[in-house]
C-alpha cells in the first residue's frame, strides 16, 4: 500500500506533513532521529489501524523549529498536540522509536487521557551515568548498518541503509539525514535527558516497552528504567535485534503488540 501524504496547515502560516494509511483506530508513529521512511512495520500496522506518521518539523520541506519559533522541549510537545488537533485525533495509540520514543513518552505524560496506549521502541529520554546513551552525531549509512543492526548483512539492514549510486540522489539522501539529525538534535544534544524521568509517573496509558537485546545505541538496561517509572508497563526483549527490533524481528514484534493494542483499544472505548 502506498501511504497518502497529508499536508496539514498548522499555526497559521506553517506546514506539517504526515504519512497516513489504513483504517481503524488511530495509531500515531513518531520516527527516530534519522528520519521517516514508510517501512514494512508501518505497512503491517496499517492493515489493522489508521496509521499516522508525522514528519518531524523541518523534514520533507516542512516548517522547521526555527520557522515555528519552537525554542524548547515544552514548545515541541505543544506543537505535537496542535498537530493532533489539526488531524482531529482525540484519542490515539502512540508508538515512538528512539528519539520518537522520548517524544512519545513525554506526550503520554503531558495530556494523559489523549494517549490511550503507548509503545516505546528502544526509546531515548533517560540517562544512566554508567550506561551512557550513544552520543548523537554524524554517522554514515554504512556505519548505521554495521552498528545499529544485529545482522548487518540482513536484507532489512541493507534496505534501510541503502545509498544511491547516483551522486545527486545520494547527496539528497545525505542532506535529508543531516537535516533530520540536526533538527531532532535541537532537542537531544548533547545528552538526550530533558527531565522525562521526573514526569514518567504521570503516564496513565498501559505501556509496552520493546527493545533489541543488542541495542548499541540505547542499551537494553533502559527498557527496565522505563518500566520502573511507568505504572502499567511491561517489557519485551527481542534477542536477535539491535536498535531496530520492529524491523529486524518484525513478525515477533507484531505478534507481541497486536494483542496489546486490541486489548487496550477495547478497554479504552
Amino acid at each position, binding site marked *: 500500500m502506498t501511504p497518502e501524504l497529508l499536508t496539514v496547515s498548522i499555526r497559521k502560516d506553517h506546514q506539517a506533513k504526515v504519512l497516513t494509511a489504513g483504517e481503524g483506530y488511530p495509531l500515531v508513529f513518531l520516527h527516530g532521529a534519522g528520519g521517516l521512511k514508510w517501512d514494512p512495520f508501518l505497512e503491517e500496522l496499517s492493515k489493522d489501524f489508521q496509521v499516522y506518521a508525522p514528519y518531524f518539523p523541518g523534514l520533507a520541506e516542512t516548517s522547521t523549529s526555527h520557522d515555528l519559533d519552537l525554542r524548547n522541549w515544552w514548545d515541541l510537545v505543544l506543537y505535537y498536540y496542535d498537530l493532533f488537533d489539526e488531524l482531529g485525533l482525540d484519542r490515539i495509540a502512540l508508538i515512538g522509536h528512539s528519539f520518537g520514543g522520548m517524544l512519545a513518552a513525554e506526550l503520554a505524560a503531558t495530556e494523559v487521557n489523549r494517549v490511550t496506549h503507548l509503545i516505546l521502541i528502544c526509546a531515548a529520554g533517560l540517562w544512566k551515568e554508567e550506561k551512557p546513551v550513544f552520543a548523537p*552525531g554524524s554517522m554514515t*549509512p554504512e556505519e548505521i548498518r554495521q552498528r545499529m543492526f544485529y545482522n548487518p548483512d540482513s536484507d532489512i539492514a541493507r534496505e534501510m541503509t541503502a545509498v544511491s549510486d547516483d551522486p545527486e540522489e545520494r547527496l539528497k539522501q545525505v*542532506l535529508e539525514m543531516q537535516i533530520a539529525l*540536526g533538527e531532532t538534535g535541537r532537542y537531544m*544534544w548533547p545528552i538526550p535527558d530533558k527531565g522525562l524521568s521526573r514526569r514518567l509517573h504521570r503516564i496513565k496509558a498501559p505501556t509496552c516497552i520493546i527493545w533489541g537485546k543488542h541495542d548499541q545505541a540505547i542499551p537494553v538496561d533502559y527498557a527496565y528504567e522505563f518500566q520502573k517509572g511507568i505504572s502499567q508497563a511491561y517489557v519485551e526483549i527481542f534477542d536477535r535485534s539491535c536498535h531496530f527490533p520492529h524491523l529486524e524481528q518484525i513478525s515477533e514484534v507484531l505478534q507481541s503488540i497486536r494483542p496489546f493494542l486490541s486489548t487496550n483499544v477495547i478497554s479504552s472505548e
Partner: protein
Amino acid sequence: MKFTFVNVMPYRYLPEDFVDNYESSWITVPSHLYDAKKGHQIFNEYISQYEFAIDAGFDAIGFNEHHGNAYGLDNSPNIIAATLARKVRQTEKTCLVLVGNSIALYNPPIRVAEELAMLDTISGGRVVAGFPTGTSMDTNYLYGVPPAELRPRFYEALDLIKQAWTKEEVFSFNGKFTQLSHVNIWPRPYQKPHPPIWIPGSGSIETWDYCIRNDHPYFHLSYSGLEAARKFMEEFWEYRQKLGKDLNPYWVGYNMIILVSETDERAQLDYEEHIRYMFRTLMHIPGKYAEAPGYRSAKSVAKSTVSQFAVHGKSRYSTKKDFSWKSLIEGGNIIAGSPATVRDKLKEIIKTFRIGNITAHLNVGSMPHHLALKNIELFSKEVMPHLKDIWDDEWPVVGWPEVAQNKVGVAQSSAHKGD
C-alpha cells in the same frame, strides 16, 4: 598591508604512532598523552614568541580559542592576551587581535564584552575583537551547544555585545537564549564606539553577507590551499560589488602558514617534519567530529562537496592525504622557502586576491622554540618590510584601532573634520 602574528599553541609531543592508534587529536585525545611539565614549558615559550613578535614590529599579535584538543592549547584567548597587554601598550602601534572569542558558548555573552573592554582599557585602545562561530568539535562536542542552535546563538550574542558596548543607558535584553534585566558594562571599552569586530569564517555565504552588510572585515580561516582561496576571494569581491560596497582590501584577512629560512632547501630541512606533524597528527580528526549534523545550514552543505565526503566518513580536516613538502607547497597549503621566495609568493597572493590582512602562523606543528623564533625573525626582517606598504597609497585602513591608521586614512579623517 597588515601582518598579525598568530600562535595556535600546539601540543608538540603526541607520539609518532598517534594516527594509527588513537581516534582523534580533538575531543577524545587521552589525557595520559599530556605532560604537565612540558605544558608549562611550551606555554611560556609561546608567550615569549608573542613578546618577540611585538619587538619584531608586527602590526598585531593574535589569539585563538579551542577546546579539548592537542591542535591548539589556547582555551582562553583573553588570558594569553592579558599577559601581553601591558607590553603592547608600550609599543608604537602593536595591537591585540582576539581572533577567536567563541561568543555562542558563553552565557551571558556580556562576559566576553567585559573582558575585551578590560583588555582595551589596559592596552589603551589596542584591541580588535574577533568573533567566530567556532568549530563543530569545540562548540557542539565539547561545549554542548546543539548544532542547529549555534548560529542563532552566535548572532544573538553578537547583537547583545554590540548593544552592551554602545548603548549609553542601562537596558534590558530579552533574547531567545539570554535574558538580562540590566545590561551595564563597566569598564566601558576604551575605543569609541567599540573595538573593531572581525568575523573569522570558513566560507559560508551567510557569514560574508553579515560581514559585508555590517562593515566587519571577514577573515578566511582555511589551510585548504590556494585554489580554494582563489575561488572564495573571487566570490567575496563579486558579492561586495553586487551589494554596492567598496573594494578596500582591508575588508579581507587571510590565514597563512608561512615558513622562512635562509634558502628554499634549508626551509625544507628546517620545517618539513614539523609541518607534517601538524597536517598529519594534529589534524587527525574523523569526519564524524568535523561536522555534527545541523552545524551548517542545509543550503551550505548542499553547496559544498563536504557532504559527499560525509558518505565516506572522511573529515574536511583530513581530506588531504599527501603531506609531502612538495605537495603542500604546490597546493599553497603553506608558503615556504627563502625570504625572496616567500616575498614573491606573498606579493602575488596579496595583489591577486586583494588581501589587506595576513594572519601569519609562524609557530606550527612540532616546531621547537628556537626554530619558531628564527621563523619570526626572518619573516619580520626579510619579508614584512618589503610588503607592508602595499595598498597604503590607495586605501585607508578599515577595521583596526586608530593607532594602526595609514596616511590615506588620516588624510580622509582630517578632511572630514574640515567639512
